């Protein structure tokens, strides 16, 4: 794994460690692109806090801003960094220990 991919994954995990940011990402995933004002109306987070979180999420590459007038900028989810982080999780989710123990049980029957 290249160091830049490690950095990408690390930023994803930092982004996901905060419940407000998870809420923003979940809202964008389920309802599509939204402005900071839309998100503030939907989530129990102030508009100022939303703006701060969106900046961090944009730096992590998890959201992209559509071009537009400042207050009307819509943010949309960008999934590529999530896929890099998923690769990291995939190795831990394989569960070869569970599988090999099932193989042993099968052979011992």
């Amino acid at each position, binding site marked *: 794994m290249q160091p830049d*991919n490690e950095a990408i994954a690390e930023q994803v995990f930092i982004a996901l460690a905060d419940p407000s940011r998870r809420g923003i990402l979940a809202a964008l995933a389920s309802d599509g692109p939204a402005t900071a004002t839309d998100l503030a109306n939907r989530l129990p987070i102030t508009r100022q806090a939303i703006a701060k979180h969106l900046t961090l999420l944009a730096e992590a590459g998890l959201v992209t801003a559509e071009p537009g007038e400042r207050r009307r900028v819509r943010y949309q989810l960008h999934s590529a960094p999530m*896929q890099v982080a998923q*690769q990291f999780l*995939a*190795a831990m989710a394989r569960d070869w220990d569970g*599988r090999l123990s099932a193989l*042993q049980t*099968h*052979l*011992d029957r």
Partner: protein
Amino acid sequence: MAFPDRIERTLDLTHPPAKVWAALTTAEGLGTWFGNQAEIDLRRGGEAQLTWTSGDKAQLTIERIEEPKVFGFTWHIYGLPEGDPRRTYVEFTLEPAGAGTRLTVVESGFAQLPDDAHKMAFDGNTDGWGKELAELVSYLDAA
């Protein structure tokens, strides 16, 4: 933080290699310990399908068959989208150990980089969705 690229396990079994080989390479074996049901076309380039009662499925592409020593296949990386071309390689090695078998499993390739061509295709898909929805909207508006 280090990205794990490979997983390796070794297991000492009291059963002879032929029996372990059958558990790894037959539909009956794979459908018992690995999946809840399995089908396998045991040849290089052949495929095996595993299904679970949970509804999960996995498709293996067989890469190496050296009976009863080496069985290798590639499969999808868990969690990545279905169309993602990246796959990990799993290799089982069976060595006789007394009356039993020393079984080693190595799964490698977790740390593959997404290739640019794929990234473009994926971003293209995302854009494609936006475009198709826009086309649907104009179609409905026109009607």
